[in-house]
């Protein structure tokens, strides 16, 4: 694929603090790449370096194979939508959108025509003469987008464009924004801390942590086959257990702390970490179950029921149908969907996989309302008591 935008060993440090740590990535032409990561992982700094607004400490930015690292921001032809929108307060909506064209000395009539065209694209043409102070958050976001695309940039950068909107509006605008961005078919880098946003917008997903890209690829691929604990825990929820692969009776067996199952294809003998998504575990009849687990607590999420189970000293999250008849302290039969276990090699029994930085994302289930999540810890009695009294 012809990569239009490229970052090569891009680095930014502020004194001893490293914000971006030799980041290399090719952003495919005409596609949307979503960069997702927790706050402080260097997403915005990366974006600002691409835009030429922050000078890198090292490495280079290339556009169409040309090194643009030394090119000032105003000559890069890169549009950017800022997190706080940064609309010009002394100009009205139309003048904001025209600004890029004014800098390029486009004639007044042509400027007007193109601003109107762009405003129509974001369905803001009726507010062209409004002052930006009179706009709502969602309207500002659209004007910011219109301003960034009106001068037809080569690359579009968006820095958390939905994060300053309230949850309901965000939901509403997300679909509209995504449809528009896909229609534009411009090389786009979309930065967000919201994993759902990132997975749904991007043709390509890059997960960032501590100034590095941990993993990149098509969103479904990254979600299904996370390469390390950080990625597994950051995108959705994950059950992670210490396990062992061993040959038994001529077959490769995966020994989980609470069950032994067939090892997935491509597994090799030795200690490993096993990751299973909550939705890849299902409540089944006893005869089809891979293991039995006791219900510790449950969380009704509307469209599904999230169960916290305990089996053999491990805590396990299972997403079940929301109409599952549940009795307190029930023992359930759980089946693991075929081919859904992800394994990473485990060098020594005590260490956790690479990327073990996120709070509460240690081995064990994440995103449950309580509990330490450590599968090796002895069963906390008070926690079970608490579950029963619910």
């Amino acid at each position: 694929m012809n990569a239009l935008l490229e970052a090569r060993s891009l680095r930014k440090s502020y004194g001893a603090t490293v914000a971006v740590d030799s980041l290399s990535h090719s952003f495919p032409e005409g596609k949307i790449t979503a960069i997702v990561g927790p706050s402080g992982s260097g997403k915005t700094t990366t974006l600002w370096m691409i835009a030429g607004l922050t000078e890198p400490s090292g490495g280079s930015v290339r556009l169409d194979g040309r090194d643009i690292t030394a090119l000032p921001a105003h000559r890069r032809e890169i549009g950017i939508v800022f997190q706080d929108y940064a609309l010009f307060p002394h100009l009205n909506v139309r003048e904001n959108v025209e600004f890029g064209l004014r800098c390029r000395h486009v004639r007044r009539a042509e400027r007007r025509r193109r601003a109107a065209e762009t405003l129509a694209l974001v369905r803001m043409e009726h507010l062209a003469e409004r002052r930006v102070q009179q706009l709502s958050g969602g309207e500002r976001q659209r004007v910011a987008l219109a301003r960034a695309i009106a001068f037809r940039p080569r690359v579009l950068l968006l820095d958390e464009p939905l994060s300053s909107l309230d949850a309901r509006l965000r939901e509403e605008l997300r679909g509209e924004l995504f449809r528009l961005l896909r229609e534009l078919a411009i090389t786009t880098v979309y930065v967000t801390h919201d994993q759902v946003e990132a997975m749904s917008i991007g043709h390509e997903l890059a997960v960032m942590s501590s100034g590095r890209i941990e993993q990149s690829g098509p969103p479904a691929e990254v979600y299904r086959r996370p390469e390390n604990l950080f990625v597994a825990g950051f995108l959705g929820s994950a059950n992670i257990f210490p396990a062992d692969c061993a040959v038994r009776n001529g077959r490769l067996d995966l020994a989980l702390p609470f069950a032994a199952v067939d090892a997935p294809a491509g597994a090799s003998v030795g200690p490993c970490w096993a990751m299973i998504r909550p939705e890849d575990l299902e409540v089944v009849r006893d005869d089809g179950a891979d293991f039995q687990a006791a219900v510790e607590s449950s969380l009704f999420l509307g469209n599904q029921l999230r169960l916290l189970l305990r089996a053999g000293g491990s805590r396990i999250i299972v997403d079940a149908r929301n109409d599952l008849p549940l009795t307190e302290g029930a023992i359930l039969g759980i089946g693991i969907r075929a081919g859904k276990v992800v394994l990473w090699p485990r060098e020594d029994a005590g260490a956790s996989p690479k990327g073990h930085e996120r709070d509460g994302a240690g081995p064990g289930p994440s995103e449950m309302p309580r509990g330490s999540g450590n599968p090796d810890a002895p069963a906390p009695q008070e926690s079970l008591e608490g579950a029963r009294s619910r």
Partner: protein
Amino acid sequence: MAGSFLPAPPAHEPPAPARMSVAAKISTAASGRLVATALSWCVALFLIAPIVVAAAGAFSSSEFYGHRSEGSAPPGSLGLFWYVFSVWGRSLGTSAALVAVVVPFALLIGAPAAYAFRRRPFSGSKLLEAASMTPLSMPGIALAVSLLATLGGAPRFTLLAGGHLAYTIPLVIRAVGNALESFEPDIEPAARSLGAGPWQVARWITIPVLLPSLVVSALLVFTVSWGEFNASFLLASPLAQSFPAALYVTYTANSFPVAAAATILFLLPVVPALVLIQAIGGEPFRRGLQA
């Protein structure tokens, strides 16, 4: 509006606790507004009173004010103004020239300094910004003496301008600095990303956005420079004497009506400036600065 359909003052109702707190807030706000109004009036009267006294003195023929009068001019007529103008015209000219020099220079020095402090902070810039405020509390005599000690050989007008700049640059730094804080810092990077070079960013974004604060700064500098007495009095020479310094001589040497008339003359350009500051400080000012 007693006897309306509105319920009794909500503060006296015993409704649900949530309502109670809202009602309490409303009544607190109402009484707070009353106190604020009364206070504002007191302050305004306190500030206006000397002007009223001076005005009364200027137009009064009463000997109550003029007991020291030498009868140099007929009081109670506009002729008094012309008298003052003819006597103190030179110092009025000096003051006008001072203002004409001090206002642009205070802006040219203060605004970039404020920009540097807020937008390009360097190590120690916070301290430096705080230090730049010290002339505001410096006694005029100390400032005048230090200016004379260091730049004693310079023309008196230059020294006067220097003294005024020391008092007015901090005002500009403060006003422009506050304006810079109040708009989003990303608008300049946004302009750059849209294709604006450094000059275009300044011309189309930074200066227009700062314009209200620059105008207010200019008017503040004008009123301060026009009225500055302490340092000006000590730095004055017979040929370079600002109007307030001349006013002192009028108050001590001439009759009160003459001095009062001179004061009114002095206040003439200040009042429109103050009105303008007030007007700009209102809607257009906020519109220009709010993001």
